[in-house]
């Protein structure tokens, strides 16, 4: 299985940097997420995680370092987290680390909402 690498940018839209490693299971999303077509952008990420879970079946660590995401990106992030929750419930090894600026109270609240929503244990890591 191949790695998934997307180089981020901050132009008209904000594309997050994506680095999903099929050998280590370490998957990182960083930067900012505000896209022209959110569903189109996140579909390959969701498909990659789905394939990893079903073929590699190894441990997976999702590392989120997003300083900003809009509400439409927040739906796609929920889709990824729900996949990981299902994998964990089926016996998969899952770690989610979410890095955030400790001055960003709204972001911490957002992470708490994902914890409530998914039932996943998400490690909140203040910067």
């Amino acid at each position, binding site marked *: 299985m191949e790695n998934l690498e997307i180089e981020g940018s901050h132009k*008209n*839209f904000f594309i997050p940097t994506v680095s999903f490693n099929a050998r280590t299971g370490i998957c990182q999303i960083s930067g900012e997420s505000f896209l022209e077509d959110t569903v189109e952008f996140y579909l390959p990420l969701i498909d990659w995680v789905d394939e990893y879970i079903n073929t590699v079946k190894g441990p997976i660590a999702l590392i989120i370092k997003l300083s*900003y995401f809009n509400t*439409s990106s927040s*739906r796609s992030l929920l889709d990824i987290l729900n996949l990981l929750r299902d994998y964990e419930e089926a016996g998969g090894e899952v770690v989610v680390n979410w890095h955030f600026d400790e001055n960003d109270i709204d972001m911490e609240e957002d992470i708490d909402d994902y914890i409530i929503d998914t039932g996943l244990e998400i490690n909140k890591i203040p910067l």
Partner: protein
Amino acid sequence: MEFAENALQMYTDVVDSTIITYNGPFDAQVLSIIAENIEYSLSNNPRVSKKIFKIFIELAQNISYYSAEKQVNEEGNYFGVGILMLREFKDHYSFSTGNIIESKQVLPVLQKCETINILDREKLRQYKRKLRNMPSGVPGGGNIGLVQVALTADHPLEYDVINLDSEKSFYILNVRVNKS
């Protein structure tokens, strides 16, 4: 009427006031230019700048998607038309937006605003989570942008609808963000 008194209060409290006014289609270029302007204008207060930026993106996208008045760009894409203002006051910033909506959307829009305003913060977060688990793209329904705006602003929404004719109304929204 409370809204009118608030408007007068805003007028008299205004400090050097207008940071941004824009009237036109909310396409990607416009969003990008205004977003950059916000980051630059408010760079001395990163916490508030971030809130203003987040609110701006959601308000602008709402106009872009849901305004009943559309303009087409060179690539043939349609974008909603509306007006947006960001003003600075002594102790807060204020976003005002206005756009045309179809009359049949008036009730759902008002219900949405009313629902947001009667919920306390915890209930509003619950509401956001509920909407996020629903399909998107239904005006006044699955859209969580406005809920996020109210959460980020941490203030009730001020809103009004003016009837233009039997088919169209003008929807006005005012969002306040404290400086500290």
